[in-house]
């Protein structure tokens, strides 16, 4: 499965993206997060440590989730982006929209 989820003791839902986040699987990630939001989760961390690449559809889903989570009073953080993935966020200026930390541990401590 490309998206592994676990609930951190602090109440944060951690989603690990294992492989790619692209047009073929973006809806699966979206649905997982929306289901958790519907079930009451408000703190989300998406961990890209094991991610190969993200396409524009994947970036689009993150933008859409960010807005939905914020509308519900929640918080979405991103972590574990390698230099290439950081470049994608910088090129598209999405680094200005998201709270991005180097590691999942740093992100969890910041909630």
């Amino acid at each position, binding site marked *: 499965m490309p998206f592994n989820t676990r609930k951190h003791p602090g109440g944060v839902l951690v989603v690990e993206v294992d492989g*790619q986040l*692209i*047009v*073929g699987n973006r809806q699966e990630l979206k649905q997982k997060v929306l289901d958790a939001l519907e079930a009451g989760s408000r703190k989300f961390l998406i961990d890209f440590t094991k991610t*190969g*690449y*993200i*396409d*524009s*559809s994947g*970036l*689009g*889903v993150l*933008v*859409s989730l960010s*807005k939905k989570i914020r509308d519900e009073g929640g918080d979405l953080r991103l972590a574990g982006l390698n230099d*290439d993935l950081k470049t*994608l966020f910088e*090129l*598209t*200026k*999405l680094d*200005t*929209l998201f709270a991005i930390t180097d590691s999942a541990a740093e992100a969890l401590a910041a909630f």
Partner: protein
Amino acid sequence: MSAPLYAEFARREDAEGGLDAELRLRIPSDVNLVDEAVELVARHLEAAFVDRHTIRFNLRVALAEAVANAILYGNCEDRDKGVGVRVLFGRNAVEMEVTDEGCGFDFRHVPDPTLPANRMRPYGRGLFLIRQLVDEVRFNEAGNTICMVLRRA
């Protein structure tokens, strides 16, 4: 179930610009096949092109964008239509052509997704990323074929 991905490989005799190998793919209009198609091309090219990082990152993202655009917007996910990919490559350059069966689009007028007014949109970054990640982008007049060129870094 989708029709299978079709691929063929050939050596090119007397090729110009050192593009001495050719890979052709025919991809059914199914977004679930984008990753498989991109990996197939990347695997072939990693061994041939001098800069592996360019293949692993720039090529994979740019090709995934072009094929996804062709399936979603060119062919409107019509499973009876396919996407053609033609890759010419050698040690120092790669040329990728992606063609759909749609009517094309006005590639000269695409909004800038980095403008503050567009930044919260969940779409509209594909062509922008392609232009950032490859050395040259060309379209045919109809706008249903994109050609992307990568050169040795």
